[in-house]
């Protein structure tokens, strides 16, 4: 193996790829060759580093210097200054977000990383996901090797997982070992292991980043699961919208087969295991386990009643286990470091770590992994760097369309499955969206309900009809015709939908409404009684005005108005908006250089 004096790691996760990290690598290689350094400096393309807001990101080892928002044009300077002359390019080492990360010269020392603990993301951003050798060099396939070559009994494998306390990371939090045990107990020639990579929660990209940054960890874990329950076939159900993930999975499966780590007689043992990829086609409900299995069978993704549970009668009516990507990514570590080590992390009932896709109105948007028990405040303000533009924090939304909003007074809630449910939200798959004072909570509830109405499969009436009725009530409220009785109607409908729906989609669909009603009831009441949206988001309640004393009579607003509802005389009379004709597009407000246009 060649020795290099420096390694440049370039993030090729989704965000960074979108901002040209591919081109950066190309330029790097060209420039290193041109300057005669190609045998001294190695370029490695890696998965997500986590700090997506500042991408494309590049890290240089051994120094641990991190470069942010690198453009392909910066490459020449980096090569000649840093690699040739040994002078890191300071210009690219400072972040542009509000909270300075730049005091930290070293990656691990920055605030963003200090409070994190990377277990599921252990290899993301440090190895090349397209190289099985790099995965193996980081103890990859050691766990599978241990299980098979030390001839652990399947029951021992399951007991180890049970002992670790690992719970399903897809949202429900069902104990993983227990799920495996149910399937293992079934007597059947054919069983299946499925991986749920149909990450449908809008605003969440944890699974995507794991698949793109460390695909082998999922493959290794699926093989371990197959051995434990007695299955020899696995399916990964992944969104078609994730082309990079699909391509890297295919590559990884091919490499594992070539190395005898997948396929016939894995590690020379009696155990054989194969994995196939199935592409989803954009249906949120297919994240529900029974719906996902129907989809792999080539049918509409309608959920089916449980029992029978998939562990008894699942894919093609055979015993099946389904785990989420992040759950699988934790499995190899449990066998490398031991169940006791894993169980030492986290809280009493929620062991280990959780990955969150931190997004919305927060400075350090990105992928973070924290030990369970970390508080919401630590994530938003210490890791996330707080709210940009000096705005006030309003809420954090977790659990996507199935979850709820956590208000400021609950910021010190330690994150685990049970605590989040207690405050009216849920863990969910790991989307965490920060909202500031400009976010209208009624509008957000409507946003999520529009999503569930759209994604309801239509099989059962409470979900199909009930969510639509709830949405209509919310449209009334945001449109300015709501009444106080409507708030009660929302609560009544919510209970019925939760109790009567067939699957988790319907059972959790009212959560965003219920949690905002609970914590932000005053905003609903304002919409109803004062016909006012304090954030100016709900168009039906917003009116635009021109402040006469600030108007410079330049007429720019009237020029931009698409419906011609602004009148005045250039240089002589202040301009006025005819609110009856106004379509509330906001063009005038954007046009005005003197902040004379306001909305209220």
């Amino acid at each position: 193996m060649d020795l290099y004096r420096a390694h440049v790691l370039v993030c090729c996760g989704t965000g960074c790829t979108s901002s040209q990290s591919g081109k950066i690598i190309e330029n790097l290689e060209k420039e290193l060759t041109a300057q005669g350094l190609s045998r001294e400096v190695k370029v490695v393309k890696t998965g997500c580093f986590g700090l997506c807001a500042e991408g494309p990101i590049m890290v240089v080892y051994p120094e641990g210097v991190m470069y942010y928002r690198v453009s392909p044009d910066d490459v020449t300077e980096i090569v000649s200054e840093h690699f040739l002359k040994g002078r890191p390019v300071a210009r690219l080492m400072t972040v542009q977000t509000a909270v300075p990360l730049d005091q930290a010269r070293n990656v691990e020392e920055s605030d963003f990383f200090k409070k994190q603990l990377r277990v599921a993301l252990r290899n993301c951003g440090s190895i090349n996901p397209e190289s099985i050798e790099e995965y193996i060099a980081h103890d990859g396939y050691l766990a599978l090797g241990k299980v098979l070559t030390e001839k652990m009994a399947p029951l021992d494998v399951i007991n180890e997982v049970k002992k670790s306390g690992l719970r399903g990371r897809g949202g429900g939090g069902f104990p993983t070992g227990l799920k495996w045990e149910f399937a293992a107990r079934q007597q059947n020639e054919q069983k299946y292991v499925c991986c749920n990579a149909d990450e449908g929660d809008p605003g969440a990209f944890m699974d995507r980043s794991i698949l793109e940054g460390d695909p082998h960890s999922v493959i290794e874990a699926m093989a371990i699961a197959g051995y434990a329950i007695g299955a020899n076939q696995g399916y990964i159900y992944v969104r078609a919208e994730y082309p990079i993930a699909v391509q890297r999975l295919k590559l990884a499966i091919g490499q594992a087969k070539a190395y005898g780590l997948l396929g016939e007689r894995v590690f020379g043992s009696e155990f054989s295991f194969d994995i196939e990829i199935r592409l989803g086609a954009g249906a949120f409900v297919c994240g529900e386990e029974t719906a996902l299995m129907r989809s792999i069978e080539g049918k509409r993704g309608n959920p089916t009643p449980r029992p029978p549970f998939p562990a008894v009668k699942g894919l093609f009516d055979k015993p099946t286990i389904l785990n989420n990507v992040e759950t699988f990514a934790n499995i190899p570590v449990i066998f490398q470091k031991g169940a006791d080590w894993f169980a030492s992390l986290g809280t009493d009932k929620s062991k280990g770590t959780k990955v969150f896709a931190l997004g919305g109105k927060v400075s350090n948007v990105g992928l973070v992994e924290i030990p369970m028990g970390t508080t919401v405040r630590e994530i938003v303000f210490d890791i996330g760097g707080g709210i940009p533009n000096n705005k006030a924090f309003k809420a954090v939304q977790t659990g996507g369309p199935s979850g709820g909003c956590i208000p400021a007074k609950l910021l010190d809630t330690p994150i685990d499955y049970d605590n989040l449910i207690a405050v009216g939200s849920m863990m969910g798959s790991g989307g965490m969206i920060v909202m500031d004072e400009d976010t209208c909570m009624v509008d957000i509830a409507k946003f999520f309900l529009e999503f569930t109405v759209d994604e309801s499969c239509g099989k059962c009436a409470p979900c199909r009809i009930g969510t639509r009725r709830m949405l209509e009530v919310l449209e009334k409220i945001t449109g300015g015709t709501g009444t106080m009785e409507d708030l009660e109607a929302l609560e009544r409908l919510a209970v019925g939908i939760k109790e009567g729906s067939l699957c988790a989609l319907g059972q959790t669909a009212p959560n965003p409404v219920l949690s905002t009603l609970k914590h932000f009831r005053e905003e609903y009441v304002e919409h109803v009684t004062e016909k006012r949206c304090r954030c100016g988001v709900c168009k039906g309640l917003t009116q635009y005005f021109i402040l006469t004393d600030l108007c410079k009579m330049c007429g720019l607003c009237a020029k931009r108005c698409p419906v011609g509802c602004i009148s005045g005389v250039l240089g002589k009379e202040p301009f006025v908006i005819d609110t009856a004709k106004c379509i509330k597009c906001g063009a005038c407000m954007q046009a005005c250089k003197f902040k004379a246009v306001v909305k209220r």
Partner: protein
Amino acid sequence: MGSTKTKTHDEQVTLLEQVIAKYQGQGRKALMQVLQEAQAIYGYLPLDVQRTVADGLGVSVAEVYGVITFYSFFSLNPKGAFEVSVCLGTACYVKGSQAILEKIEEELHIKAGECTPDGKFSINACRCIGACGLAPVIMVNEDVYGRLTPDQIPAILAKYKEA
């Protein structure tokens, strides 16, 4: 997407036959995969393609239609040469993607889900594309544009109008 325009009808028919032959004998189990590959060939799934797929796999046309209409990835209508996908995931939504979508609708004079009469543009209001760090984000075919404000939209679209 752009490449679908260059294939002749006969080429498309041959390609579809090859896809169906590849999954021969698997029946409905292969339906999703065949439809995904068929859509890659045609750009969308018109009725005659649905019939061919149904006959080829031995399932009813009703079943094929049922599957197509269930999944948002499958389209019964042709898409524009440039598909403008506006991310309406939560992270983009709280950062103002609704205003971005409205601006694009205004510029192209069509609504989300529609195609311009000249077949050049279509708008797709999509759920999270996973680039939340760049929110709000749009994609024009494979090109990603992030950290957008509505006033940047005309210039972006102009690039494709001329193309």
